[in-house]
């Protein structure tokens, strides 16, 4: 059953060396929990971006928490390239597992369906196949003779995201952002931060239930108000573009990044 815990306790459920799946910015990123993970010194993470990431990945990389990085892209969007990602690539300090968006979804779906792999359209001819020897090209076992790419199942140790609300039973509202459900189905444990806990049962009506991740898949929930800041949360609040631009500028240097990180962690504690 889902436990409702404090943010620090939630972060403490992530162990060094675990694989951690996180969603794209627009789906709801657990930034407050990310701060708590960095503060707790959890490192050697194998980060899986579903299917891309930005500030969250760059902060974790800059803080030295990431050992391997599976992603289809890392970008700060309008604010430009992700500076700590770029620096880590140049330094060779993070092992890259470059991917393409639907391949990450397909890998998670393999885990969702309990199969070792998933076939996927396209990709043939891409150098991604050279740098991802775990992806295979096979002859289709059915239908007309043709090559098909297959990708192995992705079973994250932890899925982590931020959502507007959960109910007391641990059901979480995810709206149309169904990749959050896919992450949770695939992961061994799912940790969720929310803006608020609501007293009604989110599964009560057919309408409200359609956008819900059932508590069956949710191990722990922590309340973190404004928990996606400075990223956006759906139609709850927009991204703090100025803050992201400030990060982009400061994180160009290692020292600037350290200064930003220190303020960011302090800010998180003041809010909590």
């Amino acid at each position: 059953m889902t436990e409702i815990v404090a943010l620090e306790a939630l972060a403490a459920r992530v162990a060094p060396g675990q694989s951690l799946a996180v969603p794209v910015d627009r789906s709801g990123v657990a930034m407050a929990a990310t701060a708590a993970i960095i503060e707790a010194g959890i490192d050697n993470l194998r980060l899986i971006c579903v299917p891309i990431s930005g500030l969250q990945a760059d902060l974790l990389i800059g803080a030295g928490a990431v050992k391997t990085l599976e992603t289809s892209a890392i970008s700060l969007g309008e604010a430009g390239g992700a500076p700590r990602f770029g620096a880590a690539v140049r330094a060779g300090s993070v092992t890259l597992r470059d991917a393409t968006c639907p391949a990450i979804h397909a890998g998670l779906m393999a885990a969702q369906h309990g199969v070792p792999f998933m076939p996927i359209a396209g990709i043939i001819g891409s150098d991604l196949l050279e740098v991802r020897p775990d992806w295979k090209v096979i002859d289709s076992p059915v239908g007309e003779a043709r090559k098909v790419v297959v990708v192995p199942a992705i079973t994250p140790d932890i899925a982590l995201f931020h959502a507007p609300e959960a109910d007391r039973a641990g059901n979480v509202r995810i709206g149309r952002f169904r990749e959050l459900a896919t992450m949770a189905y695939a992961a061994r444990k799912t940790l969720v931060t929310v803006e608020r806990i609501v007293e009604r049962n989110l599964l009560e009506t057919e309408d409200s239930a359609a956008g819900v991740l059932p508590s069956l898949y949710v191990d722990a929930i922590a309340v973190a108000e404004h928990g996606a800041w400075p990223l956006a949360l759906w139609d709850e609040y927009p991204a703090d573009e100025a803050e992201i631009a400030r990060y982009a500028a400061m994180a160009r240097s290692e020292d600037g990044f350290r200064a930003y990180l220190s303020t960011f962690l302090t800010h998180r504690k003041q809010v909590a």
Partner: protein
Amino acid sequence: MSSDHERREILIAAIADLLDGIRHVAVGASSPIPAAGAMLLRARNEHDGKPPVRISILGSQAHNFFTNGGIELFDCAAQGRVDAFFLGGGQIDGQGNINLVGTGDYPKTDVRWPGSFGSAYLYHLVPRVILFREEHSRRVFVPKVDFVSARAITPEVPRRGGPYALLTNMALFDFDREAGGFALRSVHPPFTPADIRENTGFDYAEPDVVRATPRPDAATLALLRGRVFDELAETYPAFARIMKQAA
């Protein structure tokens, strides 16, 4: 070209023309010019009584009719329900291959770009992929990309998708899938075919007479500066404001 804003109007109109005949175009996030081109086509079709055009803008609330999460655009393309899409590239080569990963040797690339996004997949599945890259330079347009994020031609596997055209700040190229390369279609004034040759690192076919990319006609400009920029403002307020002010 007298101004940034006129150049952009030419690009938007060129995109609308490239999209002519499609039913559904998907536009990536942070792509105001492709989005404006798609909206211009939609407005023109509606005005001319032609079939409606559906526009999906990734990450937009108003232009999002997907309800199955991040996979839906990709599934939709695989089902043949997306007719056109836009891709860029840190490098694009003469065979139409694109590189969104970086220059030099992988993984410790000299310059690292964000990554391949969905390109390796969508390039196979969307019939009209329009390569859109404003910077027209030998740095971008190279003989051979350092990393193939997505390959244009793969005879070893059936595919419906691939590059259709390449649009830059200076010119418009067609992609010839049979020949496996680009052919210059038109040059945006005031550039000349010689300017294009000088700034393009890959080889391409060139007709004897290269026409100038047409400036949008009055009817098109009226639609664009009126309805289209208003619609665009929902998703790209800053861009739409600048364009309306300049017009």
